[in-house]
């Protein structure tokens, strides 16, 4: 049990995918302008990332490894992620129109989120088993969601703040992200995983 708690803690804080590993920066900058959309994106990513982490583990373990095709991982994982995203979109659209309205536009965007592919590939690299992959994917997505929501809340306040003219817009956002990243680097000594 401690092992799984450590995986969660590691992926959420210590090795945060956005601020420490620098994966998934595009949606981090792109949809963080409003808190509402950031929450939608965070929810959608959590869902897809956890699923695709598990599915890509299964594909790697039971299809690629027995056939000795490990070098085809990247393209296989991209295929798996795209299918999971599409499938999720259809199921959500059918079963919960309300959730679909919240996630709607963000679901297709996740296909190109490199954090999703990053998690799938890192699962293999770290030789995680099924449950570990599940927790690794979930932790990564919770970490992503947390910093995305925090960052968008900050950006909402920054738009109202008196920012010097040269720093206005994206530059102050990037500087903020950099300072957040520095802060998260402070977790580095917390645990060893």
């Amino acid at each position, binding site marked *: 049990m401690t092992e799984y708690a450590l995986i969660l803690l590691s992926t959420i804080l210590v090795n945060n995918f956005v601020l420490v590993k620098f994966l998934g920066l595009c949606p981090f900058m792109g949809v963080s302008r409003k808190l509402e959309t950031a929450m939608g994106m965070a929810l959608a990513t959590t869902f897809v990332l956890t699923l695709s982490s598990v599915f890509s583990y299964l*594909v790697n373990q039971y*299809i690629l490894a027995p*056939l000795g*095709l490990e070098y*085809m991982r990247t*393209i*296989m994982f991209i*295929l*798996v992620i795209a*299918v999971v995203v*599409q*499938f999720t979109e*259809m*199921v959500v*659209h*059918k*079963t919960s*129109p309300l959730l679909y309205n919240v996630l709607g536009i963000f679901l297709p965007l996740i296909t190109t989120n490199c954090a999703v592919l990053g998690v799938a590939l890192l699962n293999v690299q770290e030789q995680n088993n099924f449950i570990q992959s599940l927790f690794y994917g979930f932790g990564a997505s919770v970490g992503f969601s947390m910093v995305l929501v925090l960052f968008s809340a900050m950006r909402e306040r920054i738009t109202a703040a008196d920012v010097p003219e040269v720093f206005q817009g994206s530059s102050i956002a990037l500087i903020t992200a950099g300072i957040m990243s520095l802060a998260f680097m402070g977790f580095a000594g917390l645990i060893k995983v």
Partner: protein
Amino acid sequence: MMVVIITLAIIAAFFGLLLGYSAIRFRVEGDPVVDKIDAILPQTQCGQCTYAGCHPYAEAIAKGEADINQCPPGGEAVIIALADLLEVEVIPLNAEHGEVKESKTVVYIDENTCIGCTLCIQACPVDAILGAAKHMHTVIESECTGCDLCIPPCPVDCIHIKAVTPTLKTWKWHRPEGGYAAPRAG
């Protein structure tokens, strides 16, 4: 090499079948309520309900943001049909949005007075007014929905309403009394 190609092809085909199947299994026919409301509205896109067109108004009704009595072109028939669909009380037309017309009207521009200011062109929701700056404008009668939105902006009051008298080509049989002729789903 062959193993790779075959494996990838099999997996891709499997995923393709899965997605194809789920596309049929989980098919959704839009938002049924919005579409049903939209089917009842007269589709004049006149904007008198304060929404940008009939579909936005239908969405607003479905969300509960708008009342069902904001559509002057539809008049009482549309209100009754909407009340029937949404199972709410029939309420009289909100006079803020305009009055019901006895018969179909269109507008025409008094071309001697028109100064070519283009204000009425901007107001027209269906692009039925033709003209350019400082040139005379004219109304394409077959496109005009009779919403009268172009009349208030005109600075020289050169736009007038006229009733459409049916000709042999445009005459239609009267709609049945009391019934509503819009297509019903199901």
